[in-house]
């Protein structure tokens, strides 16, 4: 005897919704209102009432087409996956050269150059304490050092992201090496990372060297120089990552990044440059926190806003100017020292959010970054995570796979509104430069950082192994096999540096520094007085990184933090 199939009429939307609401309220208890990190209320369920197909063309369109929500290229990750760009930098130039060769031998095609903190601070190796040299990056001060970094490697064959805050001395040294090797500058490709001085003043005090007005001048000179001489170089990377790592919510970080990009674009336009020429070379860099859907929505909303901003504010007609190209890094702030292997799971979730957000380049953090500079094993797992997500989990088979989700589309629209509201607040005080001088973004970020920390302290936000699910007796972490540069090799490097300085033409060095100082004192935009051009010429004359920074600090003033607790 067969069972009779139960036939029920399809209920109407309204009555079904009412019934669900009743049942839901009966089960859910008093959960209160949930909000994401950006403060947006998150409902328990999203339906076609929140977002519907009738909005498809207005909100989404097709990949590579306006409004760019689904991605900046027609084929996105199906056509070409992202660049796997891990950071490289440690010890002497020889150490860097060895590591770079290992990466290239393993099939890598993109490099990165992370200099030592002494370089970030604008000093040469003989100006700082020996134990700090080369611990967090490579010590590169002279054209000879850069030549060693690229020993047996063609400077025109490798795209390099250089962590090189203004006045972009490392790029200048790279160009000097190219000149020495007869490689045309047109073949030099890569990105000036850490060119976004505004983010340094607002949120990351690691990188700034020159006072705010001078920084503004040098960046525009740099963009102008690159536009003329380096067609394959991205002179600007706008760093939302600093804002978010400093404590901005995801929506605030995106808004402040877009405001910063608007400021730079306005400054370039004021110099007389064409937005259709310089905007296609703008790139971005974002943090991916573990707030999964919020991060995907942040990146999609940012992409949609950027194409609108460049068209509405800058009249950009070149479709390449509409593309919101970005690198993303999984957030180290979310990683924990407690139960450190848990970080492997966190990084994977963050990376998935970035991939679904449509990134062009990805750095996955090593799980032990919160303990020390990453070990080799942890760095390998970070790369493997990307390979697993791409080739085992097949995350790249479909373009923007979450597009059309009632929740994600509603959230993307809400994030866009939040971001626009913050942009309007910055516009109201006269744009990003004026806002930074008045301390507005610093204040915003400081408050958000403290508010989030208070949520962790009160247990409102769970951090596994820290404020919940703690092990009764925390196992002591294994002593990390921390690598420190060889002190003998570093001392030899300093001796070589001193010999380099003694042997170069002192007359040429003095002349180059005089010319640089004169350009710095000329009115911004004076023909023939491009500060960056003089930096490059000085590097070719044997002037060192520290001397270049010192000269411009004398002329423009020292950078100082514009924020206090």
């Amino acid at each position, binding site marked *: 005897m067969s069972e009779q199939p139960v036939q029920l009429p399809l209920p109407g939307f309204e009555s079904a919704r009412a019934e669900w609401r009743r049942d839901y309220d009966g089960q859910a208890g008093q959960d209160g209102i949930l909000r994401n990190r950006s403060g947006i209320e998150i409902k328990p369920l999203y339906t076609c009432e929140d977002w519907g197909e009738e909005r498809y063309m207005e909100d989404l369109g097709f990949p590579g087409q306006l409004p760019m929500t689904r991605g900046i290229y027609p084929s996105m990750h199906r056509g070409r996956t992202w660049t796997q760009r891990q950071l490289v930098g440690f010890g002497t130039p020889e150490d860097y050269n060895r590591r770079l060769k290992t990466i290239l031998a393993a099939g890598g095609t993109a490099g990165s150059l992370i200099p030592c*903190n002494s370089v970030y601070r604008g000093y040469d190796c003989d100006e*700082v304490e020996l134990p*700090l040299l080369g611990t967090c990056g490579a010590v590169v001060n002279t054209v000879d050092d850069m030549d060693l970094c690229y020993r047996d490697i063609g400077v025109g064959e490798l795209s390099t992201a250089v962590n090189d805050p203004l006045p972009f001395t490392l790029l200048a040294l790279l160009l000097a090496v190219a000149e020495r090797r007869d490689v045309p500058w047109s073949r030099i490709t890569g990105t000036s990372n850490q060119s976004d001085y505004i983010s340094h003043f607002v949120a990351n005090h690691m990188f700034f060297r020159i006072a705010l007005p001078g920084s503004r001048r040098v960046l525009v000179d740099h963009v102008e120089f690159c536009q003329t001489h380096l067609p394959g170089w991205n002179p600007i990377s706008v760093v939302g990552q600093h804002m978010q790592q400093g*404590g901005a919510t995801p929506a605030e970080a995106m808004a402040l990044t877009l405001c910063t990009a608007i400021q730079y674009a306005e400054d370039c336009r004021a110099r007389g440059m064409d937005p259709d020429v310089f905007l296609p070379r703008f790139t971005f860099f974002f943090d991916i926190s573990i707030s999964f859907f919020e991060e995907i929505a942040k990146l999609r909303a940012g992409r949609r806003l950027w194409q609108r901003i460049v068209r509405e504010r800058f009249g950009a007609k070149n479709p390449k100017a509409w593309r919101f190209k970005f690198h993303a890094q999984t957030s180290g702030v979310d990683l924990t*020292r407690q139960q450190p292997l848990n970080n492997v799971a966190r990084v994977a979730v963050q990376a998935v959010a970035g991939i679904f957000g449509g990134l062009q380049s990805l750095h996955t953090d090593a799980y032990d970054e919160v303990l020390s500079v990453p070990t080799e094993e942890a760095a390998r797992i970070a790369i493997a995570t990307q390979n697993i997500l791409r080739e085992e989990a097949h995350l790249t088979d479909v373009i923007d796979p979450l597009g059309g989700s009632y929740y994600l589309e509603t959230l993307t629209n809400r994030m866009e509104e939040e971001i626009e509201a913050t942009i309007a607040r910055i516009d109201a005080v006269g744009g990003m430069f004026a806002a930074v001088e008045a301390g507005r973004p610093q204040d915003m970020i400081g408050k958000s950082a403290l508010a989030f920390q208070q949520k962790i302290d009160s247990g409102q936000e769970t951090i596994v192994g820290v404020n919940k699910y703690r092990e009764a007796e925390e196992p002591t972490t294994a*002593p990390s096999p921390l690598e420190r540069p060889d002190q003998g090799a570093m001392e030899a490097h300093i001796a070589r540096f001193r010999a380099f300085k003694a042997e170069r033409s002192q007359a040429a060095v003095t002349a180059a520094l005089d010319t640089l100082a004169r350009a710095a004192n000329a009115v911004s935009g004076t023909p023939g007085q491009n500060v960056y051009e003089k930096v490059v010429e000085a590097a070719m004359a044997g002037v060192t990184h520290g001397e270049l920074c010192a000269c411009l600090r004398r002329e423009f003033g020292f950078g100082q933090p514009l924020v206090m*607790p």
Partner: protein
Amino acid sequence: MSDSTKSISPPPRVLVTKIGLDGHDRGSRIVAAYLRDAGMEVIYTAPWQKIEAVVKLAVEEDVDVIGVSSLATDHLLLPDLMAALGEAGFGHVKVVAGGIIPDGDEAELLRAGVSRVFHPGSPREDIVATVGDLATQARAACANG
């Protein structure tokens, strides 16, 4: 306010700073806010302080505790700070460190006289209570010295 901060009057004076080359200051700013909220007098500096500058400020401001944040490897200079404090006749001042400090380095810092090393995830109450207790000890040592 924790009990330890009530136990001495005037309230503990704490210098929150960063030495060396790194500039990541989210942590030092949050800890400064914690201590201030707990009723302590906090003297906060920008990053990149020279050892001599920290000692000079500690003496001028007559602090009880110095908190040094280290996110790179700048804590390697802490033994130098301990020595410089001693030479300045300010050896009673307690020094704590916090940030990304590997276990091997932590042992070395404690041997050099650093009172305590905090790590990411160290609870707020622990930081506030420890600094308060150390301030009490520093005051007592100063009075006896």
